[in-house]
């Protein structure tokens, strides 16, 4: 185990994790850089249940290329990928180019994305806490996935279902509701060839 960092959650629980894991958070990273004698970083705004979920995410991402910051250019659907021809593309600066052309790298990144998607397939309440934690701790990848998870939860649901998800009241009058739905009913048109 490499150098570790101790994190204290809002409800007083201690988590000891490797630097590479903890430093996924830019906030933790900058707090650790300041000369902190006990290597103990308090995080009063994150409770232990959420922090452990966050650390699970960070552990998975610790030694992978960031999916969302380096893999910015999706190769086109039909761009040829050179299987395993990673020769010469070993430096980290060319890691994005490497991901695009090396099959093994590409597969690893895709697998990570799949894992991320499963990770955020949780109820909206947990997503809400993950979003706040990712925002507070400045963890880009987690922020990205939590937002995507929230959007996923909304997609494919009609307004009534979305209301249930957000625990909201329908404060439109029936006339107002009908007006709104009528304007854009063409977008909902079921497709008939």
């Amino acid at each position, binding site marked *: 185990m490499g150098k570790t960092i101790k994190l204290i959650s809002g409800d007083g629980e201690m988590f000891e994790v490797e630097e590479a894991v903890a430093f996924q958070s830019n906030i933790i990273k900058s707090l650790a850089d300041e000369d902190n004698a006990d290597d103990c970083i308090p995080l009063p705004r994150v409770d232990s249940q959420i922090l452990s979920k966050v650390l699970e995410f960070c552990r998975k991402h610790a030694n992978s290329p960031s999916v969302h910051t380096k*893999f910015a*250019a999706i190769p086109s659907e*039909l*761009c040829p990928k050179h299987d395993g021809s990673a020769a010469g593309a070993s430096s980290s600066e060319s890691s994005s180019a490497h991901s695009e052309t090396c099959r093994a790298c590409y597969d690893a990144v895709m697998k990570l994305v799949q894992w991320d998607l499963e990770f955020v397939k949780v109820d909206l309440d947990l997503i*809400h*806490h993950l979003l706040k934690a990712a*925002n507070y701790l400045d963890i880009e990848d987690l922020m990205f996935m939590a937002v995507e998870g929230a959007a996923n939860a909304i997609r494919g*649901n009609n307004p009534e279902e*979305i209301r249930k998800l957000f625990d909201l009241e329908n404060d439109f009058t029936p006339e107002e509701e009908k007006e*709104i739905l009528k304007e854009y009913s063409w977008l909902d048109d079921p497709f008939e060839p």
Partner: protein
Amino acid sequence: MLLPLFSINTPKPQPFPLGDRPINPPLFLPPQIMRDADRGSTAVGLCLLPSELLHEIFFRLALPELLRVRSVSKALASLVSAHDFRRLYDLRSDRGGGWLFIYKKRPPRDSVLRGFNDRFGRWFKIPVVSAAVAPGEDLYFLAASGGVFLFASNSRRELVAVNIATRSVRRIPPSPMGPRGTASWRRSGLKLVADPSGVDHFRFLFAEMVHNRSVLFEYRSETDSWRAVEAEPEPTGAGSTGIGSRRDVCLNVVQLGLESVVLSCGGGGEEGPAVVLAHRPRFPAGFQGGPPVGFNTSDRFHVYGDGNVAVVRSSVSETAGGGGTTRTRVVTGVELLGLSEDGTEWELTSSAPAAIVEALRWRPYTAMMGCLVEREGVVRMALMSNCRGCWDLAWLSYHRAQGKWACVPVPDCGTTGLNMAGIALSSTFSRSLWSSLSAA
């Protein structure tokens, strides 16, 4: 093959929008938000998030889903209807591929305009043929921009502009060229430009040879009138290249063997374009002018648009079936050329890589038509091919800065047995959908 990464509850999975970055710099939540959550209330705290975070979530939704959010509650409706949100949302969606529209006719009276956007991954029916347009009127779809859809009416030999945002139909008076039928319109280089400020106004331009001179015709909806500007030949010599950079609109006029004539216009204001130039760019060797529609007798055809030309090469193949063999063609190459800085040549921009051509190769065709647009450094072209009554659509794009080609998969929209009466690309359609949204 890049697999769709999401399985979501809509008819087709969307491509994963990688590259979208979360908001930066991070916000620190005001203490009262934390207190609400700490209270452990049963209400889902998602709505208590700062609006910037909620925006991030809503940016991820396709337009139909977003509009559904609008009917959830007044609070969400006002968030989604806010001008700032709409502006940011449009900026994000414009990074997508834009829209592809096709107009299908099922004689004698049935017709429908369909739109496809790769971000949403499915076809939508666009309600343009309303009661204001005479049922059974023989229309041909020419162009789309913002919320305006332009048709040529063959029965009445005039142009009809339908605005889907304001639900208005405008019949355009004849140009100085007089009433024209569809065939003439299909030949000309033309461009529809909706007013970007979102008001129900537009300009329509087309170029034509009149008595051996190139003329640009411009219609403005604000004044409901036409003006004709004769093109000046491209000035040669020192000091002329300054004009070349002001090519707001480029229209091809005609191809004459090795040369083609292209009009460019730029600058100008209320009274019309300031400068209209006629260029006679030469094709490089091996690229002589081809017809604008690829029938089974031509081994290459040209698709013009916005100062570019895509050359689609093909070769003959015999296709068996239907009690005999049909002489068909298959695409063997696509090359993109652009107008040179000084307007004297078509310069090769890029050749489509083998993988792209491979995607087009398996579709034998007897006739092909296409359209091409360029916007913000991305060239997009749609190629529609027909083989024995079956229509095939291919959507290619070329990103200048990255030097990359892409082929957008287009799902079938049920075109067998129908007449295809026009195809167009537009990247500004989404903006028009907001204008009829009133603040909640």
